[in-house]
């Protein structure tokens, strides 16, 4: 039982990393209509940039900020030079971004080598909080805290702000929104940048937990896709629920039944596809 609590915290922190990734992915898709399969590779790039910054200036927060800004720039360049010209051609966008992720993965391999890097938890966040005989790693609590903060901000933005209203309107009917005189292009660009920056933040914050290795992009992309399909696109609550289900299943599965743990998330994935194709909480996008 006590072990289950610690595993639960691990699962929760993993779920929040998945949430940061999947939120960026489904924001870019929902708002821009852009299918960005390079999201996993961008996460990896964020992790490596974070590692590099920490190695040179020893500042965790600087690494988070630099990675977020760097990824926003890279992501926007990707949009400006390529994806913009493929508007409304989702399969082509997918193929293109797969190509881009291959390039990113190989460049990362070229620069940083094939070895798996581990990032130390930043100073002040090492160690554990002891409750009775249980030790909860502080860093995991910190990740959960950041995740909750981002979730609250995104939720607030979606439901309570003008930007959120514009986004929801644009998802329903983009042409109508634009014809009402709303600068949808500006809003969607900002949200796209936010989604990219989230991938960078997730990369740096997640690196002490997931590690950093050149093939991590594919693994995380896959988990992101599963989260998005299970949770559904369009609502931040759906993404969170999907991340929670997949993160928890994966962590508990690995802790208790490691031999078949891999397939728990797949079973959920297939079940959701069959029974509720629009996701647990999602807009009917088709």
């Amino acid at each position, binding site marked *: 039982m006590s072990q289950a609590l610690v595993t639960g915290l691990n699962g929760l922190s993993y779920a929040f990393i998945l949430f940061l990734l999947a939120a960026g992915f489904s924001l870019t898709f929902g708002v821009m209509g852009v299918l960005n399969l390079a999201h996993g590779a961008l996460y990896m790039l964020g992790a490596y940039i974070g590692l590099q910054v920490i190695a040179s200036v020893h500042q965790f927060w600087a690494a988070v900020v630099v990675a977020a800004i760097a990824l926003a720039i890279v992501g926007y360049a990707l949009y400006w030079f390529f994806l913009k010209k493929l508007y409304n051609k989702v399969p*082509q966008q*997918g193929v293109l971004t797969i*190509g881009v*992720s291959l390039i990113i993965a190989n460049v990362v391999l070229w620069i940083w080598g094939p070895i798996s890097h581990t990032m130390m938890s930043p100073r002040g966040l090492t160690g554990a909080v002891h409750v009775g005989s249980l030790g909860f790693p502080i860093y995991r609590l910190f990740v959960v805290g950041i995740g909750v903060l981002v979730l609250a901000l995104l939720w607030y933005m979606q439901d309570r702000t003008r930007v959120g209203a514009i986004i929801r309107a644009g998802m329903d009917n983009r042409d109508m929104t634009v014809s009402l005189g709303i600068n949808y292009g500006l809003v969607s660009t900002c949200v796209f940048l936010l989604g990219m920056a989230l991938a960078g933040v997730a990369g740096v914050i997640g690196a002490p937990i997931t590690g950093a290795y050149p093939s991590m992009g594919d693994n995380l992309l*896959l988990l992101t896709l599963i989260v998005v399909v299970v949770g559904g696109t369009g609502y931040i609550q759906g993404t969170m629920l999907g991340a929670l289900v997949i993160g928890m299943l994966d962590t508990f599965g690995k802790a208790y039944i490691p031999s078949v743990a891999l397939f728990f998330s797949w079973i959920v994935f297939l079940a959701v596809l069959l029974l509720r194709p629009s996701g647990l909480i999602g807009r009917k996008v088709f």
Partner: protein
Amino acid sequence: MSDERKRSTVETAAVAAPDAVAGRRFGATTMQDAGVVTVVAIIVLLLPLFIPSFVSSLVTKIMIYGLFATSLNIIWGYANIPSFGHAAFFGAGAYTAAILVIKLGITSFWLGLLVAIVVSAAIAAILGIPAFRVFGVGAGAVNPIYFLLATIAFGELLSRVAITIRPVTGGSTGLSGVPKAHIGFGSALSEKQFYYLVFVLGVICLFLMYRILSSHYGYALRGIHDNEKRMQALGYNTWLYKYTSWIIAGVFGGIAGVLFCYFGSSVIPSQFAMATSDISFLLVILGGTTVFFGPLVGSIFYVGIEYVVSIYLPARWPLIFGGLIVIAIMATPWSRQRYQGLGPGVLLLWRWLGRAVPRLWRREIAEAPSPKRGV
């Protein structure tokens, strides 16, 4: 009956998709095109007599990848079902054949091929149900994102299965040491004989696919590509058409997998995964989705580039491969369907030659009686 039915299908498809039926998009087959096919087939047939064996192994690879990509083009180019997980069937075929030979000791190539066809059809039938559940009806073609995500996940799921059940599949290192193919005549096939086996099987498969796509069924698929709602209004069960075309594509993908397992004499889990699916859609885009032989043309370019890179810059291959994908996507004029990919280019070049060469000929021998125009 069947002739009448075909005519009526072509007529209804013509209502739904005038472009496709008039041959403006897929390029009407002419006698000249039949000429290209014959000439190319004869060249490929005679090639092993003149070239060193490493080149003929490249040609074998071109044929296998070409078959694989053409099977993807059935659903991608004709029925407009963009699948990112076509390697699921390729891997299924390869693994089935390898397991039969290595683990069960069944050495007959034909039995392996038959079982692999059944297995890949079964996998396609099973995965098709959840996949087409999210593909939706009618407007599904407008927003195929969930379908894309699901197909990526299927291929990866199968590769994880292959990694996990180690006793059967050899785990993450796969199975190596697949022996040379036995097709029933005496000893195992030599490399040259295998070349001809791939050639014959490839021609049969391409012919079957071509027949399927030029039947009433194929015209219905083109109609779905252009206007699915209209096809539904005309009384077609479009779900069934898409689902069956997915299974057909899966079977031919599986056959390509079987050939590849004998070609490379090993199987690895990544044959199910994105790495292999990437190849299939790069070939389709390189060659063009609108011409039946487009993916084969793409295959020639791809294998050539891969060979050169594997000699000079093997470590940077993913970078170049990704760059190829980006260039292919960005260079394709997506709004002008006749000019997508290299396939139509080759076709147009051939047709231009067909007009220009006889003209030159006539000019040179102006005094002589003008030669009859060839077919």
